[in-house]
């Protein structure tokens, strides 16, 4: 049993000879870890995931999952993983139970435990009562839950979740998160999540790699990433802020101005806010909050708006 469940070294994917979707990515994931791949659209998250799942062949570089090479032992890798795709990939004309049964057969779950295991995963995602309904009568959230159950059915070592809550309403997202947390506890899985929702990554992941333009720009625990910003965030609304005075305060790490709003990253902001308000001049509104992963994300990936690139697939 390898302590490192996923090993990635210098992974590169080039499309059509020129488009570099993934540009030399390296990371390791320990057994039982929840690992997040975070990045803007088209950053290379899904491409990385697909290479690990043997759906795409890497152009160069190496990756091992459950100690199997993704290029040389794709069959072994596929048996070791469960995948929940970004888009629903279950059959609408089959019932929930039938979808799971089909999956069990294709993944060689032995007949003696098939039924019991299907009931088990249905129970895990609270779909036991809907097991005999056709999938076309499921809501989006139910369908996602069924696919999570399906991904778990064959006892995979690693579960891939590609944007698990994309397009779901807040209540449903909250639910899905609870299910994921539950199965981390109960099934002791290694999980890789791609997402561009910061709250999702912050809540679920043990470690996060922020990926942009095909490169990992930073990799750490959510806590350390946030602490790495060097302080809390203070937002001020001010028509004519005294910016030069602010620049002289040593505990202000960063100053950003957009329109009437001044954003400051401040060490130990609570005890310095009095002083800041004293020097900045007339202020209409003040907001003080601890840093979020969004602040981290924006720091590393920039603020400019991006057209969606087609590199996601």
């Amino acid at each position, binding site marked *: 049993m390898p302590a490192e469940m996923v090993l990635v070294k210098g992974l590169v994917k080039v499309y059509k000879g020129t488009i570099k979707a993934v540009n030399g990515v390296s990371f390791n994931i320990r057994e039982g870890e929840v690992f997040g791949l975070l990045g803007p659209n088209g950053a290379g998250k899904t491409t990385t995931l697909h290479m690990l799942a043997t*759906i795409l062949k890497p152009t160069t570089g190496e990756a091992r999952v459950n100690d199997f090479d993704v290029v040389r032992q794709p069959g072994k890798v596929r048996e070791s993983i469960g995948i929940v795709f970004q888009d629903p*990939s*279950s*059959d609408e004309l089959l019932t929930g139970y039938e979808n799971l049964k089909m999956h069990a057969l*294709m993944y060689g779950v032995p007949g003696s435990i098939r039924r019991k295991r299907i009931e088990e995963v249905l129970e895990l995602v609270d779909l036991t009562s809907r097991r005999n309904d056709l999938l076309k009568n499921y809501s989006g959230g139910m369908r996602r839950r069924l696919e999570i159950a399906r991904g778990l059915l064959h006892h995979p070592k690693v579960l891939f979740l590609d944007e698990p809550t994309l397009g779901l309403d807040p209540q449903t997202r909250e639910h899905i998160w609870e299910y994921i947390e539950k199965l981390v506890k109960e099934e002791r899985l290694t999980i890789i999540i791609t997402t561009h929702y910061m709250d999702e990554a912050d809540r679920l992941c043990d470690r996060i790699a922020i990926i942009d333009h095909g490169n990992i720009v930073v990799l750490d625990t959510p806590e350390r990433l946030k602490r790495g910003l060097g302080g809390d965030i203070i937002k001020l609304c001010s028509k004519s802020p005294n910016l030069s005075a602010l620049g002289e305060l040593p505990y202000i790490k960063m100053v950003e101005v957009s329109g009437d709003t001044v954003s400051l990253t401040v060490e130990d902001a609570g005890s310095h806010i009095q002083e800041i308000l004293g020097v900045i001049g007339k202020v209409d509104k003040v907001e003080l909050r601890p840093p979020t992963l969004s602040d981290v994300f924006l720091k590393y990936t920039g603020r400019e708006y991006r057209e969606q690139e087609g590199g996601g697939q």
Partner: protein
Amino acid sequence: MTELGGLYAIWEREVRVYLRERSRVLSSIVSPVLWLVIYGGGVGAQISVGGLSYQTYIYPGIIVMALIFSSIFYGASIVWDRKVDFLKEVLVAPVRRSTAFMGKVLGGATDGIIQATIILVLAPFFGVAVGLHLLLVYAYMMALLVGLVSIGLIIGSFMESSEGFSLLGGFIVFPLFFLSGALFPLTGLPEWLLTLTLVNPVTYGVDAMRGLMLGTYRFGLFPDFSVLLLFALVMVGIGSWAFNRMKI
């Protein structure tokens, strides 16, 4: 075991979905019956072939027609599977692509068998008694179906849209049908027409069915079966290759 389980899983899914869509089953019966009743009845009012009523004569050929249409257009299911992303679930499973392909083929062939069975029940109304040869009829249909369903799936694996599929499917279905001798005997045909008919594998399916049901062969049971078997094997080979190159 995984391969066998996968084969069964994919086959079962295809058949379940087919039976669940009653309208699909029903509509696949309607046009053969219209051909038999209206076309067969209309043309049959004027002519008969070798002592048989025209309706009786074309009955085996109309069954084959039903099989051609349903098998080729069954290939559109692969376009649909891709569109709704269900194909991903199948293609990332640890089963061989050729297994996935064979599961689809057997599923489509079973759909065709179900459809043919319904038309066979109507045989007495068209003066046909299948009787003792029923098992052979099914064996020949199965061989023909495997070949035809494979063609449909091969086209489907190359097609991005169902519109494109219908267009290409139409180009394939009609020559296969009209050049199979389903509607007329092969005797006394102009040279070019005869040649085209002889290179069409479906012709041998029609010949076998007509022989088994009406007792009139042009080639005989053994040559017919040889051609159909070869046809099925070649198409399965090409189909496995086509599925292997398919991107998710």
